[in-house]
């Protein structure tokens, strides 16, 4: 299977702290790759590096055949790479519908004057986008909130809207930063189900998660990080039994079998 995203020797230093050291990661095209590791292992920094929110200190990031090392974040949605945020972000004072419309790319191709005067081309595009937005909102189950300001939504509902906003950009790779954190089991099931469905339709996922259950059930491939370095990677079953992984999370083994629990 080919890789859609690879990093070579990725490093990020913050004033003497090596947040990420020499990370060689690879995300298979069409798969669901999990990125796990204890807090402070460098997962978020790695995500920030590959999505253009932080400039790597050294190393390379390759996406879909292009070198995107150090590319600013706003260049990436246009080539199919989008992400969500750990503390979910939505435009609180815009309606849910507007949240999606802003995210969609196609209106931005028009010049300012046609946009201001609402030319026929613009109107046609807007109609298409609205229909798309409705369908994505229906997919995540938030269509009846379309006119509501996003600020009134609960945490879980915001996560669904944020996901829909990613989808309207027609991405090839979605990077999800702890999509299941802080939400109730119903929404966990919903989001997990959505990820599966979308993946079947060809969307590649890179997911940072602590939820072991989810990792086991849905990921094809898991990368484990610890203290800024890649500890190991492989199939979920293999990684889960790896001594070093257990040590990284739990400390030295004292003969217990881990059950699938959600980590806070």
């Amino acid at each position, binding site marked *: 299977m080919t890789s859609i995203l690879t990093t070579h020797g990725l490093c990020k230093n913050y004033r003497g702290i090596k947040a990420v050291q020499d990370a060689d990661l690879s995300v298979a095209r069409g798969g669901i790759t999990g990125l796990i590791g204890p807090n402070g292992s460098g997962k978020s920094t790695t995500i920030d590096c590959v999505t253009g929110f932080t400039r790597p200190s050294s190393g390379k990031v390759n996406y879909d055949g292009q070198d995107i090392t150090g590319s600013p974040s*706003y260049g990436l949605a246009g080539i199919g790479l989008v992400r969500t945020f750990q503390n979910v972000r939505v435009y609180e004072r815009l309606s849910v*519908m507007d949240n999606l419309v802003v995210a969609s790319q196609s209106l931005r191709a028009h010049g300012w004057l046609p946009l201001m005067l609402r030319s026929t081309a613009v109107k046609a595009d807007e109609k298409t986008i609205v229909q798309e937005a409705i369908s994505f909102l229906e997919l995540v189950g938030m269509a009846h909130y379309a006119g509501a300001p996003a600020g009134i939504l609960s945490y879980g509902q915001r996560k669904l809207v944020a996901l829909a906003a990613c989808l309207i950009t027609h991405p090839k790779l979605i990077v999800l930063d702890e999509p299941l954190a802080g939400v109730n089991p119903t929404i966990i099931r919903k989001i997990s189900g959505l990820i599966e469905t979308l993946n079947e339709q060809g969307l590649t996922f890179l997911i940072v998660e602590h939820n072991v259950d989810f990792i086991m059930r849905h990921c094809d491939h898991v990368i484990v990080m610890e203290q800024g370095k890649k500890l190991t990677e492989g199939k979920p079953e293999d990684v889960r039994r790896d001594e070093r992984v257990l040590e990284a999370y739990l400390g030295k083994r004292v003969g217990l079998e881990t059950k699938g629990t959600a980590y806070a």
Partner: protein
Amino acid sequence: MSVSTPFSTRSTGGVQPRLTWPLIVLSLVGLILLPSIWPSSYVVNVLILAFIFAILATGLNLIFGYTGLLSFGQVGFFGLGAYLYALLTMDGGVSPWLSILLAGIGSGFVALLLGYPALRVSRASFVIVTLSFTLLTALLARNWVEITRGPMGIPKLSAPSIDLPGLGTFSGHDPHVFYYIALAIAAASIGAIYLLVNSPIGRVLRAINLDEPLAASQGISPKKYQIAAFAVAGVLSGIAGSLHVSHLGIVDPSIFDPYYSEMLLIIVIVGGPGSFWMVVVSSLVFMAIPELLRMAPELRMVLFGMVLVLAAMLFPTGVGGYFEQRKLAMWRRSLRS
């Protein structure tokens, strides 16, 4: 022009009671007829000043209310536009109408150049750089005497005139004629900004203001839009400045007086940053107040200062924001039922 799809893509501008077209048209008609109903030169001059401030305030509203950047550069562009107008008409022999346009474009261009370094670090530096720009421009106006004639200023400025074939030429030096010139320019520039903020561009500006990293992750370059909005606000301020001095007939360094910055800020804060029509209405109100509230100017400014303090403490989103909060409360109630 209201769109009847179930979910409108019109920007939820969201902060003002939806002013429908009939109301706008009605107000315009009212303003057009006003001098005939109330011919006092005094009233006409107050309104001209109100129109000029409305243009200025809309510019600040665009960069501060919609895009979220507190700029103290607007008065700098106001003065720059004024001096450009004077130089173009006096030294360049350019027609007044064209000079107003060029002064606006010139100011916008300078704003474009200033925008990039101003946005470099943090919001604090943006505030201080734009402030310094205004101060530097004021300094230049006072001291670059070869060009600006220094503290004496450039007097005897020509004003635009209205040429109606068959009816003759009406000189802008007559306040009653200038009234219509100012109204037309104000309507055109404010109208253009209205189209802008209600277009997808306006929505993007609000998105950047609400959550810059989110916008970036969605493919929006925040700096590009911020600089563009800053440039547009600069154009508006330059136009307002030319209008102001062509009405006064003279341009001098007092155009940079802190009074303009202070009034501008009050107008936008009380109207509500991000509330389009409330800010326009606020301009009219604040220009009319001094005439309604006769008191020592210093005392009036003390009062205005207190208004700012109150607004900052209790109503930072102004009148317009109050309406938006009510709308939000309504949504919450309807979702609960």
